[in-house]
């Protein structure tokens, strides 16, 4: 497997054990029937509130935690199959993750050079010291950390949050990542430098790197990603082309999410908000639409039957009974 062009997730379910007895274990359903595709040179944004299962999906794609059921395939090869023998190290070199907190993801007692050299050596044991060095310098230049020679000798505390996040991106790129799963990469950074990081990742798409951009900020999702998927309590409720999803949101949750985005001067009147309700905890036994408890357009069918996927446009899908055939027949 040299060049990856597509990672496909089909019907992925992830359950976490949450106590119970040894005879009857209890589970929490963190992700339910998630299907998505990451393509080289493109970004897919996963938008949702805390606890909606965004990071859980990324961890499964990274093979950090295995899915309970479902398939993850890379260019047609199923990596979740029991007979799949590719070693984790080889896979990890291609699929890298960037974390939210650049202050916690770098070791304070090591230089940037150390942080860069270690993964490069682990993944490319055949490289000589000069080759490793050249790769480090060129990658640091590429992410905008010039002069790279000086930056390489610095310790994390000498860098700002934005520069640290650039180091995290450089580290992923240096080992040859073809897919980068970025888990809220800009939410801990200062507003003035967030855009710089987004633009850097945008430029990397041109080099064929595919991104999964996890965020709770739907405005940046539209800015950076070609496609957007909105998640609610472990379910993908609406997905497709970013512009279709953000400009003509169809699922009541997406509509709620977009109406809540603060934007100066745009909102003159207060929109109708969804009734306040606690976000439900989903178990394998739960049925019906996860958003039913908060939805203003809820009907009886929503409480009992999980809505099927409906295609609205060429690249715009929604999971809601309002748009399903079945609903119109009832």
């Amino acid at each position: 497997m040299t060049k990856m062009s597509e990672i496909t997730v089909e019907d992925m379910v992830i359950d976490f054990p949450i106590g119970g007895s040894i005879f009857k274990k209890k589970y929490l359903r963190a992700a339910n029937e998630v299907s998505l595709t990451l393509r080289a040179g493109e970004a897919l944004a996963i938008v949702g509130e805390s606890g909606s299962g965004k990071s859980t999906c990324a961890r499964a794609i990274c093979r950090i935690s295995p899915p309970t059921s479902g398939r993850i395939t890379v260019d047609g090869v199923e990596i979740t199959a029991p007979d799949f023998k590719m070693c984790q190290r080889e896979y990890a070199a291609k699929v890298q993750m960037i974390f939210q907190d650049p202050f916690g993801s770098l070791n304070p007692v090591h230089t940037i050079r150390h942080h860069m050299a270690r993964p490069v050596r682990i993944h490319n044991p055949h490289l000589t010291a000069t080759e490793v060095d050249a790769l480090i310098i060129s990658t640091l230049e590429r992410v905008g950390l010039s002069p790279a020679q000086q930056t390489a000798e610095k310790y994390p505390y000498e860098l700002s949050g934005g520069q640290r996040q650039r180091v995290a991106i450089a580290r992923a790129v240096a080992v040859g990542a073809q897919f980068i799963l970025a888990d809220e990469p800009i939410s801990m950074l200062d507003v003035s430098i967030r855009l710089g990081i987004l633009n850097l990742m945008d430029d990397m798409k041109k080099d064929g790197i595919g991104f999964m951009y996890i965020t709770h900020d739907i405005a940046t999702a539209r800015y950076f990603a070609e496609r957007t998927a909105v998640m609610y309590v472990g379910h993908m409720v609406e997905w497709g082309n970013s512009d279709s999803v953000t400009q003509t949101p169809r699922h009541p949750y997406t509509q709620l999410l977009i109406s809540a985005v603060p934007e100066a001067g745009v909102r003159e009147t207060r929109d109708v908000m969804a009734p306040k309700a606690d976000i439900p905890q989903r178990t394998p036994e739960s049925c019906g639409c996860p958003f039913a408890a908060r939805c203003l357009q809820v009907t009886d069918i929503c409480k009992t039957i999980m809505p099927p996927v409906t295609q609205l446009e060429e690249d715009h899908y929604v999971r809601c009974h309002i748009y399903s055939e079945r609903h119109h027949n009832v």
Partner: protein
Amino acid sequence: MTDTMIDRSVPLLSCRSVCIDYVTAAGNARACNKMSLDIYPGETVGLAGESGCGKSTLAFAITRMHNPPALISEGEILFEGRDVLRMDEDALRRFRWAETAMVFQSAMNALNPVITIGAQLIDVILAHQDVSYDGAYSRGEELLETVGISKSRMSSYPHQLSGGMRQRVVIAIALVLRPKLIVMDEPTTALDVVVEREIMDELYDLKDKYGFAILFISHDLGLMGEICDRIGIMYAGNLIEMGAARQVLEAPQHPYTAGLVSSFPSIHGPKERLFGIPGNPVNLLNLPTGCNFQDRCSKCVATCKLHDPILQQVGTAPPHFAACHLTSAREEIAL
């Protein structure tokens, strides 16, 4: 929320050239440099800027909650004409909470995890008012209901509540003594947008009911544009622009404000490549001569590297101030 509704004759809070230094071994870092700010009764004033620009430092100093190494080296802070910096311990104790309350950034850390929220509410009432325990308890229940939490939650511990509910409890505690000013330091930063929207709407209903003024500190300009009457922008300890919310966001006069405004991708507007602000924030221990923003500014000219820009009026109706050599030069030509 409109400008005409606010009585601008006597300021509620008036900061006059306040300087706050952090005394460190490497030298004094000036987190607030000659900050002057008036807040009128019932007004919402926003302070925006990136981390380390001194906005939270100022918020703490208003109620003198700053701790060493922070030190107020110059200026005065007047609340209804009384100098906060000269109050003795007793007067300060009565002033805090009863007249100026504070809502902190992280509601997760602001509540004591081992005491019920009811006890934390009652504690404030009993400490400041001469009421019986039962009276305080029913007042606590009433307050929880005003922020949209069932009174049965009085006996809950903070960990049993969601982040949004905890933030509501913190707001309820701030409102206990009906303060005239509430200082909110990034009250909704850690929350999801939908929850943030609910809390802000509720806060505004409460503001209409009780008529308090708000000093709102955040970096989210979109949210500020919606709720604030006036917005001040801070950079490296200096107030660099101040004016009516709409004017600051729609016609920013300082290049930093313009950069900050264009750092937020829009959800509705046209999709275009934005550039934000290049470079990194300055180190307060090593400030350049002249304008602090010179290294990151695309419009920097020779004067910017020599002289400090002064906050000057650049617009009259409503008053708009900016501290930039370019805008002041333009004003001079216009005059």
